[in-house]
C-alpha cells in the first residue's frame, strides 16, 4: 500500500474526532458500484424468463399489489428465492475460494477443482440414494462431513517430510476429484432410476428447485460463517507474507491454517449441498476482486463475496434466458466462463509463488 498517494483515501471523522476511519477510495467505490450492479441484475432476473414482465409490473408485485395474481406467484415463489439463492451461494463459494487460495498459497485453488465440492456431492448423493427418507436439514451436515474428509485427505497426502507443497495439493485434488466422481457415478447406476435422475440434475449445479427454505438456510449459515472468515482476515494477511513472517508477527500459523480450511470447507460444502457442485466461482472471484481494487484482506473478502454473488446470479440468468425454454444449469455456465479465465491465470501464475 506504500505506493498509493494520500488522496486515495477518504477520512471520516466521527464523534468530535474521537473516532476516525480512513477509507481507501478505490475499493469503496468498487463495492458501491458492485452493489448497484447487483441490484440491477436482481431486477433483470425478476423481469426476464419464460414469463417476461416490465419493470413497473415487477415493482408493483414487490410493493404487494396483485398479491393473488400469476405475476406475484412467479416473482415471489420462483424468481426471487432463486435469485437470492444464487447470490448467497455465489458469495459463499467465492469466499471459500479466497480462503483456500490463501491457505494453499496457490492462485489456482478452487473448491470444485480440488475435489472439495465433489466430496460434498458424494455425501449428498449417498444420502439421496441410500437414505432417501431423511429430511433436507441433514444435507448440509453430510456435505460438510464429506468435504472435510476430502480436504483432510488432500492436505494430509500432500504433506510429506519436506513440508506441504501447493503443486502436490492441486494435483492431488484433481486425482481425488476424479476418484470421487467415479464413486458418485457408480452410486447413480446402482440406485433407483427416479432418485438417480434427480441427483443427476443436482450434480450439474442447477438452481431450478431453489425455494425460500434454501434461502433461509443459506442465510443463517452465511451469518455464522462470514464473521468467522472476516475475523481470520488479519491472520490471512500475515500468512500471505509467508509462514515464517506470519509466525514472527505473532500468528499461530498452524491454528490459523486449520481454522481457514474449516471455514473454506464449510462455506463450499453448504453451498454445494443446496445447488450442487458449481465450479470456478471460487477461482474467478478472488482474482477479479483483486484486479478491481487493491485493498486489505478484509475488504478484499467482502469484494470477493459480492463478485461471487454477481457471477452466480449472472450465470443463472444466462442459463435461464439464453436457450429458453430449456434451462442450462448455472454450473455449466460458470464452467464455460471459468475455464478460459483459468487458462489466463495459468499464464499469469508467478513461477516463484505457485510452482
Amino acid at each position: 500500500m506504500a505506493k498509493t498517494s494520500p488522496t486515495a483515501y477518504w477520512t471520516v471523522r466521527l464523534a468530535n474526532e474521537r473516532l476516525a476511519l480512513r477509507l481507501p477510495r478505490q475499493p469503496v467505490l468498487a463495492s458501491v458500484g458492485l452493489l448497484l450492479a447487483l441490484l440491477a441484475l436482481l431486477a433483470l432476473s425478476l423481469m426476464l424468463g419464460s414469463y417476461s414482465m416490465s419493470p413497473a409490473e415487477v415493482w408493483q408485485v414487490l410493493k404487494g399489489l396483485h398479491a393473488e395474481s400469476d405475476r406475484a406467484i412467479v416473482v415471489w415463489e420462483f424468481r426471487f428465492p432463486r435469485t437470492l439463492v444464487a447470490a448467497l451461494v455465489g458469495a459463499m463459494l467465492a469466499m471459500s475460494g479466497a480462503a483456500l487460495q490463501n491457505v494453499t498459497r496457490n492462485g489456482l485453488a478452487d473448491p470444485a477443482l480440488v475435489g472439495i465440492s465433489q466430496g460434498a456431492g458424494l455425501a449428498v448423493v449417498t444420502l439421496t440414494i441410500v437414505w432417501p427418507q431423511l429430511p433436507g436439514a441433514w444435507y448440509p451436515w453430510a456435505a460438510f462431513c464429506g468435504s472435510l474428509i476430502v480436504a483432510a485427505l488432500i492436505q494430509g497426502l500432500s504433506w510429506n517430510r519436506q513440508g506441504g507443497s501447493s503443486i502436490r495439493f492441486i494435483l492431488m485434488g484433481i486425482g481425488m476429484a476424479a476418484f470421487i466422481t467415479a464413486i458418485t457415478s457408480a452410486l447413480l447406476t446402482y440406485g433407483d432410476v427416479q432418485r438417480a435422475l434427480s441427483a443427476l440434475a443436482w450434480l450439474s449445479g442447477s438452481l431450478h428447485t431453489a425455494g425460500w427454505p434454501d434461502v433461509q438456510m443459506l442465510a443463517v449459515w452465511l451469518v455464522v460463517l462470514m464473521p468467522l472468515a472476516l475475523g481470520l482476515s488479519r491472520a490471512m494477511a500475515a500468512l500471505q507474507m509467508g509462514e515464517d513472517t506470519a509466525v514472527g508477527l505473532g500468528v499461530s500459523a498452524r491454528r490459523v491454517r486449520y481454522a481457514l480450511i474449516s471455514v473454506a470447507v464449510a462455506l463450499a460444502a453448504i453451498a454445494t449441498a443446496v445447488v450442487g457442485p458449481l465450479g470456478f466461482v471460487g477461482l474467478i472471484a478472488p482474482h477479479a476482486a483483486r484486479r478491481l481494487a487493491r485493498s486489505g484482506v478484509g475488504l478484499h473478502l467482502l469484494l470477493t463475496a459480492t463478485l461471487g454473488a454477481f457471477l452466480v446470479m449472472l450465470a443463472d440468468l444466462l442459463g435461464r434466458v439464453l436457450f429458453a425454454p430449456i434451462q442450462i444449469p448455472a454450473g455449466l455456465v460458470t464452467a464455460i466462463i471459468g475455464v478460459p479465465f483459468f487458462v489466463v491465470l495459468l499464464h499469469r501464475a508467478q513461477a516463484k509463488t505457485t510452482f
Partner: protein
Amino acid sequence: MTAAAVAPTGSRQHLWLGLSALPLCVLAVTVLFGWHVAVGARSVPLGTVFQALLHFDPSQFDHIIVRQLRLPRAVIAVLVGASLAVAGALLQGVTRNPLAEPHILGLMAGASFAVVMVIGVFNWLGGFWLPWVAAAGALMAALVVWLIAQWAPGGATPLTLTLAGAAMTAFLTALISVAHLLNQDSFEQLRVWLVGSLAGSGRELVWVALPWLGFALALAMLLANKVTILAMGDEVALGLGVRTGWLKIQALVCVVALTAGSVALAGPLAFVGLVIPHAVRLFFGSDYRWIVPYSALIGAGYLLGVDIIARLILRPQEIATGIVTALVGAPLFIHLVRQRAR
C-alpha cells in the same frame, strides 16, 4: 546399434525377463479372454466358450450368444485396452511426464466432444467416419492443451500440462452437457457411451476402428526405440542423432490415432493409459522396446479383467467400465503425485 549402447544397465536382465514373461502374459490374456466371454447375465461354461470359438454350431443357443454378443465385446476390450496403454506409454515417454495419459491431457474429452457434436448436429450415428471425427477432436485438444501449457511460465511441465488438460476436460464436458440439454432426444443414446462403456458398440465398429488401431500400434512399435532415447532428454536425443521434432510429430499422430480409435469404440475410458505403463515399468525398466509391447499385452488383459469386474459386481446389472478404471486409476495418480511432484 545406438540403441544397444544407450540401453539402461541391466538390459540383459530385462531381455531375459522380457522373453520369459511373454508366454506367461499371452496365456494370462487368453484365459482372461475366455473368462470374459463366459461371464455375463447368463454364464456360459468355459468349455462351451472355446467350443463356440473353434467349432461354431449355429443351432446351439450358447454358441450364438458367444459369437454374436460376447465375442465382439471381448475383442473391443482387448483392442481398447492395448491401444490406451500404448498411448499412455508413448505420451509419458515423449512429454517426460509421469502423469501423462490421453484422458488427463484432455485428448479424450476432445474426441468425445467432436463425436457428440457431429452426432448431435447431423443426427447421425456411427459408421466409417467416426474415428476420423474423433481423431480431429483429439488432435485439436492435444494441440490446444500443449499451447496452453507452453504459454504458461516454465513451459510444458507435468504440472502445467495436467492443469491445462483438466481445464480442457472441464470446458468440453460442460459444452457436451449443454448440447445434451439442448437436444435431448439425439443425445439420450450417448449417455452410457460418455461414461466409457464397452457395452454399446457393435461389431461393425470393430472393423472400422481396427485399421486405425493396427496402424497406430505398429507405428508405436517402430517408434519405441527412439522414444527410449527421447525419454532421456531432448539434448541427449539430438546428440545421438534423433530428429526430435519429427519423432514428436510421429508420436503425436500415433497417440491421436490410438485415442480416436478407442474413443470411437468404447467412449472415454479414464486412467487405463496411466496405470498400465507404470505397472510395466516396474518390471521392465525404462526401455520402450519392452514397455510398448508389454503395455499392449497387459493393457488388453487389464481391460478384460476390469470389464469382468464391472459386469460381476452388481449382476445382472453392470457398472460402466469407465467407472471401474477411474476407481483403480485415480489412487495411482494420487500416489504418483505424492511421490514425484515437488
